């Protein structure tokens, strides 16, 4: 027994490191009261270590703690992804005037980011319904507080409150769905659920359908897909930019990880699988509809936004829709396309938020009008933002194109023609609002002599840290694709 726990613990090192980091951050904050940045440094170091350790988990799949958590390449992929995005968010936070405005609470800020990251790590590996709920709640609770971090700003508190209300509601619905599934199958491990369904005796299928849809609500909320997206714009606008960036990438990625694992594990294989038994109900079509709604609504509403943060919030809803197209296909190609997209999305979206933050720091505004003539005042930032936005649109030779390419490839390979066409047209719509920013930067008021936005050297380096992958992955993406394929291979879907 003890041996087993010890053996399991050895597979749990990245999470343990995060846990230790969490405590260390709090202690550092208490001990080194006068130097709030030290806490951030500890958080950063711990996350880097956890990420490196997680990268070592690309081995044979294992279930630890009685099937509570899976340790496999799929989880490792997401853990590394989350760790990288957390590290980037920490680095971005160094230059955030919002975060620095409440520098006394820096320890709190860093600790909460670490605990949210821990939640996301667990989400990536969770293979038991209870674990899913716990991981989700850990992430959510940390995020609620983070969203209200700048409590002096009224919209930040509003964001936090809205986030809690929506979060509580959707968690409740999801939990209820999970309880129904448990009642129907008598199992909480995902594999157990599948086996029970495969046996098939006495399962009330209509009820199972209701339960599944309730669980989907929980996932939809986490990845901010329409119609569970209502919290997104307000929270993204109200929260500090660093946290918005964190939520839009890490939280979304972890949500996708959880959703994909849930679907794959409960459905693949025997005839009695969840997808199999719900024959009367066309599961992929439901996801396809959610995806179409997310893309279209996200893009159409983004056109009308003048606040860049809010615009990027709607754009992130649209991107969730693009990624859901990969889930619709549900093949090896489709799932790996989602993984590829997430990596690409991380760099370009964090990059865009970083530029928005720097500009907001210099001009004090996130409004699109603050970008008028920016090309004259901050040439490098403008070029970088153009590249990030073009990548978000999905034009070659940027990484965003590769993400879209693989999503569309998966769709066409599986003969989802109409969905591919809608997705493609959506990327044309998205061009319009992304280019609005470019237009303001380059085409308008270039003569106005507002003070230039000056970047320090570390800020420039950090910009390139996100810019180079955005360009490089657009020109040479073979390793990323290989990695993504290898990470979903264990599911054995075709």
């Amino acid at each position, binding site marked *: 027994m003890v041996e087993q726990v010890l053996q399991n613990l050895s597979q749990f090192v990245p999470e343990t490191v995060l846990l230790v980091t969490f405590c260390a951050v709090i202690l550092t904050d208490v001990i080194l009261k006068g130097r709030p940045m030290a806490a951030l440094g500890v958080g950063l170091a711990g996350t880097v270590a956890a990420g490196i350790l997680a990268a070592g988990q690309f081995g044979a799949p294992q279930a630890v703690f009685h099937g509570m958590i899976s340790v496999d390449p799929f989880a490792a992929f997401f853990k590394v992804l989350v760790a990288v995005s957390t590290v980037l968010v920490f680095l971005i936070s160094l230059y955030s005037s919002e975060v620095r405005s409440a520098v006394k609470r820096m320890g709190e800020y860093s600790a909460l980011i670490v605990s949210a990251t821990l939640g996301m790590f667990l989400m990536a590996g969770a293979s038991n319904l209870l674990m899913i709920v716990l991981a989700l709640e850990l992430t959510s609770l940390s995020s609620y507080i983070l969203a209200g971090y700048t409590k002096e700003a009224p919209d930040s508190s509003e964001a936090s409150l809205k986030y809690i209300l929506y979060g509580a509601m959707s968690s409740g619905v999801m939990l209820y769905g999970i309880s129904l599934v448990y009642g129907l199958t008598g199992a909480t491990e995902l594999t157990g659920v599948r086996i029970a369904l495969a046996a098939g005796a006495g399962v009330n299928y209509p009820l199972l359908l209701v339960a599944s849809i309730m669980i989907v609500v929980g996932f939809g909320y986490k990845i901010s897909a329409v119609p569970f997206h209502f919290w997104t714009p307000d929270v993204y606008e109200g929260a500090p930019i660093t946290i918005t960036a964190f939520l839009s990438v890490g939280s979304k990625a972890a949500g996708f990880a959880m959703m994909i694992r849930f679907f794959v594990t409960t459905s693949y294989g025997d005839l009695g699988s969840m997808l199999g038994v719900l024959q009367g109900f066309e599961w992929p079509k439901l996801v396809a509809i959610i995806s179409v709604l997310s893309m279209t609504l996200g893009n159409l509403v983004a056109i009308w936004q003048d606040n860049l943060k809010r615009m990027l919030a709607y754009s992130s809803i649209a991107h969730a829709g693009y990624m859901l197209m990969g889930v619709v296909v549900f093949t090896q190609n489709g799932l790996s396309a989602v993984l590829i997209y997430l990596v690409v999305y991380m760099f370009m979206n964090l990059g865009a938020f970083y530029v928005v933050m720097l500009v907001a720091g210099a001009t004090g505004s996130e409004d699109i009008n603050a970008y008028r003539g920016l090309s004259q005042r901050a040439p490098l930032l403008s070029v970088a933002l153009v590249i990030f936005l073009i990548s978000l649109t999905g034009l070659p030779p940027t990484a965003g*194109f590769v993400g879209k*390419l693989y999503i569309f*490839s998966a769709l066409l390979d599986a003969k989802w023609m109409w969905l591919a066409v809608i997705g493609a047209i959506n*990327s044309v719509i998205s*061009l319009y609002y992304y280019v609005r920013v*470019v237009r303001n930067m*380059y085409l308008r008021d*270039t003569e106005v002599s507002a003070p230039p936005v000056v970047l320090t050297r570390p800020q420039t380096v950090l910009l390139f840290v996100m810019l180079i992958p955005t360009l490089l992955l657009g020109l040479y993406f073979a390793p990323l694709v290989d990695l993504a*394929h290898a990470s979903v291979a264990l599911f054995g879907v*075709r």
Partner: protein
Amino acid sequence: MEIFGIGVLSWLTFLPIVGMLAVLMIPKGNEAIVKWTALGITGLQLILAVVVYLNFDPSLSGINNVDSMQFVEKAKWIDVSANSWVGRIQIEYFLGIDGLSFPMVILTALICFIAVIASWNIPKALKGYMAMLLLLDTGMMGVFVALDFFLFYVFWEVMLLPMYFLIGIWGGPRREYAAIKFFLYTLFGSVLMLLAMIALYFSVTVPDAVTGERIHTFNMLAMMDPANYDPNSLLAGMGTTFRSLAYLGLFIGFAIKVPIFPFHTWLPDAHVEAPTAISVILAGVLLKMGTYGLLRVSFPMFPDIATAWVVPLGILAFINIVYGALCAMAQKDFKKLIAYSSVSHMGIVLLGMAAMNTQGMMGAVFQMFNHGTITAMLFLIVGVVYDRAHTRDLDAFGGLAITMPKYTGIMTVAFFAALGLPGLSGFISEAFSFLGAFQVDELRVITIASTLGIVLTAAYMLWTLQRVFLGKPNEKWAGMPDINGRELSALVPLAIIVLVLGIYPSLLLNYMSTSLNHLIDIVRTGGQGMAMLP
């Protein structure tokens, strides 16, 4: 053929990028150096194009045969081994030219050089302007030399952003609207093209050279051989619904670029707002990418659908020719008139293509080249008068022949070439296109009706000539200086080409005929029995 170990086509394509980086590195305030660097780079590119001209073997057919492609460069770019379910993904850096792309390569190099001369007096942010122009140059050249569909697509899209900036920053009063309209239209077309490209990719496999395993490929040549299509794939078979859809996707993508009615509305806006040199590039090269795409991609890869849809294509050609000419006739803005005349002239290209016989096809490709040179001249001519008078209103002028005799002389060459006067290059290509189309039974009526366009063209061209250059001189422009040396240096080479090709068209036709006949064979026979290896 290699220079310093790098193939000549790579030089042609990436030299402008090198130039762009060089231009960007020049410190602020050295405008003259920026101009001369850009001119030097495009000049060098033109010299390389001449070298290609001299070394080009007109007897090789190309199209779907890699052995008769010329100046081929091939290297692995992306090779994802992945696993057994997905199969391998291979993208190649694959360049080469044949008689179809060859005239376009020459045209691109020529027009870009002329465009730099025409940009000599750009009033603001010259450095950024030249950088964007050179990036655009790379995109255009790349499209014409790429033989891997993925590569083709990347080049195709690379052009969008520089074009957006060139119209949006340096354009006229309504530049923002024109620029975003251009961007959205073209992107809409290219995403449909992207979907068709992916569908093609998943349908085509070729055996790997080493292992013999069947791998998917973006190789355009492989996509032209029906034997390479997997029997169960999306685009297998002939004349299926999926094939029609894919063809339609590609067609819309290319049609927007040409532009074919009803996708043409971006063109007048873009042309009117763009600075002179950019109009020259738009009309001279960019529009050709649409028809080039149809000939390079749609026709040989979908011969079944292309032959089945000859009549609709003919009807669209007719609409373009006559509707374009009628619109041109109604314009009061000099530049808009030329823009609509482009719509009309590109219709002639379409008509020739629809014929799918030797005369028609030769006429079409020759018309692509001629339209490039003639329309470039026309836009330069508008630019000359606009620079001096700051108006393009056709009724504001009159009797310019008296104040600007040299200008009127060169203008006459361009106008008469545009209306198809024998002895100038436009006549030959138009005559060939109509001749070819007339021979096809289904197109005969359309061809006869389309000749109306010739009459209309003559009408609006001569009417414009009369309004602007003849009649009583307008007092307001009495002191207007005649055309200067720089402007002449952009126009005269084009005029010479128009004249020489009008008298001795074989200088270019000979280079195209083998390839185009081969292309016709492929389309006619549905690509059967044209064994090729990637």
